């Protein structure tokens, strides 16, 4: 098995709008290893979601390539799961929590017992095993997002892609969910690509932070986060090294916003 899980090579995406051509993503290249937790952070409107949709095979890039596990991505790959920011619109309100988690497993050739085991296991992992009969709209925002995460976990993807998943939940819930993501990464060795606009979050969660420039986007910096794997909301965030890193990323984002960073000539 190759060590590199995901390769994004010279990705470019141009939208043809009625008002003219909009270059959302200029030239993005990065790699992600198996079992890594990579955060992508950039100024707002920098084409993070566009990049994600291209990686997920939901959008076709104008130029450049994406390889997952050595296979070219042209349509949604089977070994990838997505968690969206809008949990209210990504869970199906007519299905129960269990029904939602189970839905993507239906087309996999699994025995009934195996499927049940995966669903139960995923619900336990996110701490929602008591609510499997509820409907998503009966749950709070944070719990709904846990359901979406459980659905992704049960799917057993090789890579989990999260698109600003905690942007719409309150700060306390957000801290809990961040720790849940860390736990999934550590306990299950899941490879996670986490897109966020929150600098603290990217440093706290990631083993690497990829800083994007403003649109048309390119990779401004690829920063290794040298904090220990065991992280804690209180102690980790109080470390001097954490502060250094977040300040560094913050400055990079500010430079990106002002457009000061100069794109290296290819």
């Amino acid at each position: 098995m190759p060590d590199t899980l995901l390769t994004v090579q010279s990705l470019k995406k141009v939208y043809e709008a009625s008002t003219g051509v909009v270059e959302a993503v200029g030239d993005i290249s990065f790699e992600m290893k198996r079992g890594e937790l990579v955060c992508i952070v950039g100024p707002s409107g920098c084409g993070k979601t566009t990049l994600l949709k291209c990686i997920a095979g939901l959008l076709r890039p104008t130029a450049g390539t994406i390889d997952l596990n050595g296979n070219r991505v042209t349509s949604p790959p089977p070994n990838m799961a997505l968690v969206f920011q809008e949990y209210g619109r990504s869970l199906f309100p007519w299905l129960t929590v269990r029904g939602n988690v189970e839905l993507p497993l239906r087309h996999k050739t699994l025995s009934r017992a195996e499927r049940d085991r995966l669903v139960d296991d995923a619900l336990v992992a996110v701490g929602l095993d008591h609510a499997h009969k509820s409907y998503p709209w009966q749950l709070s925002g944070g719990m709904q997002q846990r359901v979406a995460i459980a659905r992704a976990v049960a799917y057993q993807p090789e890579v989990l892609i999260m698109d600003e998943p905690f942007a719409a939940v309150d700060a306390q819930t957000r801290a809990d969910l961040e720790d849940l993501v860390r736990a999934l990464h550590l306990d299950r060795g899941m490879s996670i690509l986490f897109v966020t606009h929150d600098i603290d979050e990217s440093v706290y969660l990631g083993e690497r932070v990829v800083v994007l420039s403003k649109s048309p986007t390119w990779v401004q910096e690829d920063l290794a986060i040298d904090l220990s794997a065991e992280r804690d909301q209180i102690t980790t965030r109080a470390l001097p090294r954490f502060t250094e890193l977040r300040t560094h990323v913050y400055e990079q984002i500010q430079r990106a916003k002002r457009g000061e960073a100069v794109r290296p000539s290819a």
Partner: protein
Amino acid sequence: MTLYTSTVITPQRRSRVWSKIGENTAYALGLPVLLVVIWGIWATLAPAQFFPSPTELVEAFIDTWIGPAFFTDVLPSLGRLAIGIVLSVLIGIVAGTLIGLNRWLRELLEPMLEFFRAVPPPVLLPIAVVLMGPTDAMKIVVIVIGSLWPVLLNTIEGVRSTDSVMTETARSFAVTSMERLRFLVLPAASPRIMAGVRQSLSIALILMVISELGYSSSGLGFQIVYFQRNYLIAEMWSGIVLLGLVGVLLAAIFTLVERRVLRWYHGIKEVERA
């Protein structure tokens, strides 16, 4: 955004449920009972030829409809109505889903659908009779042609407006197209579809009567016209009452089905209101 609340709905206790049902029944029956009483007093004080008293009406109702007429007139009418409704709903949903999911088909058909919908179905009755004769099939076709449109157009609209994030979710998890239809497209469209079915029911009832008016020798509609023409006033009114009861029964069945199918939808609405 009030959808994201933490409200968890717990089922009401049984005794409260029953007292609620009793209260609702009292509200539902209160006004009709009052009106019948007023009408009874009025009819005794000032008898009128064209407006029988409630007791006369009840007698006429029992004499006319309970007995052989139930099997020769009422049941066949109701049977045609039921078949007509089932066919309209089925054709409406199947065709509506196909048209709603295919953009080129939709753009091709939509102006024509608007045109056909605008044609009042009763004017097609003479043509249907010429083409098919005064048969059961003709009457069912008339019912279907008239009551198809609300279901069809609502299904098209409902299928088309499936949430983009939900569609992307299904795509990203490689959900198969049959599963997408069953677990995403149809449930997402179901509130619109049910709204269409509700409209179709009343149109179907009207067309059931109309399809029997001119070119028939039995059926509920035929009997009512027959009584009218022969000055059997109480009998005529009893037929109209029966039609009203059929309408109420249809609405009740619809409500039962709708509650089941749209449980989630009403649940969300309840949470949003809370």
